[in-house]
């Protein structure tokens, strides 16, 4: 059964309203008789108060205080994504087309990939300082492997018939790289775009959280230091909304770039 667009939106907002309602009911001192905590203000201390959280968010935007932090986080995300993608694309293409080099580097790449990258954050802080670049570095280590493995796979999975056909049509090695391997690899990169952008964002925020002077992660860290749970929640909500927006933007870009790939909706019965 298909549900109408309007109805769907209403139902979705209803879920959101309900969640906020439950949150409010459980944390408002004195609204419910105490169930778990003896002190009626205790629940709000642990879980925050929804209206206080919204107030903080609105204040952030009205005073404009949040924009510089969001800007920094976005800059770190973008740089991490771009540098990680370019490195992943270049090295992925190279290793996929050079079997010997690939065999030599294989255990090291697997090793780096299975290492929890977050532990590198303190080292990056020492190397690159507490500014933007240590967060970018963390994002790069996360994005690189996603892109790298997708490119590697993409090059390996080019249909041998398509390659043979291009060769018969007179393609040189450079033509094959430019017109066969690269487009095929790019389709895999775009397929992992959501993942890669998400990880760049994670790298930026986690980096900020572990040591910084700017960014939304820094706001959360600060608030946590003073047990200001409402601000922590406000930061989390802003980050979530921001991540959603970022994901939507990626979706739009993807739609434009992957025009040549069959969409399921094209064959869907009306």
């Amino acid at each position, binding site marked *: 059964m298909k549900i109408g667009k309007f109805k769907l939106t209403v139902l979705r907002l209803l879920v959101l309203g309900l969640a906020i309602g439950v949150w409010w009911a459980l944390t408002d001192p004195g609204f419910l008789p105490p169930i778990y905590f003896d002190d009626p203000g205790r629940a709000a201390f642990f879980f925050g108060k929804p209206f206080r959280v919204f107030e903080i968010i609105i204040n952030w935007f009205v005073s404009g205080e949040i924009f510089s932090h969001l800007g920094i986080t976005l800059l770190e995300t973008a740089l991490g994504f771009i540098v990680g993608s370019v490195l992943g694309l270049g090295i992925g293409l190279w290793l996929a087309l050079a079997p010997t080099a690939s065999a030599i580097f294989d255990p090291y790449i697997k090793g780096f990939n299975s290492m929890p990258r977050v532990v590198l954050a303190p080292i990056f802080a020492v190397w690159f300082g507490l500014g933007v670049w240590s967060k970018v570095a963390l994002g790069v280590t996360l994005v690189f492997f996603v892109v790298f493995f997708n490119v590697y796979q993409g090059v390996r999975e080019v*249909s041998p*018939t*398509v390659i*043979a*056909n*291009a*060769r*018969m*049509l*007179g*393609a*040189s090695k450079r*033509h094959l790289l430019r*017109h*066969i391997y690269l*487009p*095929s690899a790019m*389709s895999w990169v775009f397929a992992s775009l959501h993942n890669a952008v998400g990880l760049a964002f994670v790298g930026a925020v986690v980096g900020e959280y572990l040591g910084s002077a700017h960014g939304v992660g820094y706001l959360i860290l600060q608030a946590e230091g003073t047990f200001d749970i409402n601000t922590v929640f406000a930061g989390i909500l802003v980050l979530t909304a921001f991540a959603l927006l970022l994901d939507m933007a990626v979706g739009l870009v993807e739609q434009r770039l992957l*025009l*040549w*790939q*069959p969409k399921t909706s*094209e064959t869907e019965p009306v």
Partner: protein
Amino acid sequence: MTTTGTPALAFNDVTCRFAARDGGEAYTAVANATLMVQAGEFVSVVGPTGCGKSTLLNVAAGLLAPSSGTVEVFGERLVAERGVNRRAGYMFQADALMPWRRGIDNVVAGLEFRGVPREAARRQGEDWLRRVGLAGFGDRYPHQMSGGMRKRLALAQTLILSPDILLMDEPFSALDVQTRQLMENELLALWAESRKSVLFITHDLEEAIALSDRVVVLSAGPATRPIGDFKVELPRPRDVSEIRMTPGFNELHREIWNAMKEEVLKAYARQKAA
């Protein structure tokens, strides 16, 4: 065999062996195959499934080096290590179009690789789209086309380079019967315009007779080699659906089928045993 000058394509005692994947005994796909295609001749090769027909084509295309024996293209020896057969166009059985290119960009790919200026290439491309009945479909991506349209596109992509030799590996086997007969007629019409040499591989004997000047029968694999060579002296121009009704066609069909039957049964028995 009539020898009128240098053959366009000549296999001399070609043998192809492949190393077995599990390190066992090497598999001999083609053994001591000798076969000529004259300039302007349409030759079909028929044989039971899995008999190494495609191997033969890959050798002719220069995509695969034979283990022993030689291939000559207009008298010149083809060496696969030095690159593919530049005088041949190859139409593959499977889809070989670049899915990320629009129809027109697929058609002109060969010209682009050869450094033809974009404007000139596009003009030729549009012309070829029209000739294969795809005028106005150049903006579509391969996935937006039907199987028959994709085959037309592949045909235009190959023919735009005007190759002297056309290698075709069961190009129409994935199409339904009606589309297939249409495509066969169109292929004959295009061939009649320029009289390329064609090496056409198929498992369909009727298709082979209807299209060709000569039908070569291969033995069942492994170690495939030609075991029969039949001249098809049916009048041209032909209509593939009408020619199937003529007595001359039926007689040839019976004759070649008698030669093939034993090999087909052999191949079937081998597959069943495996």
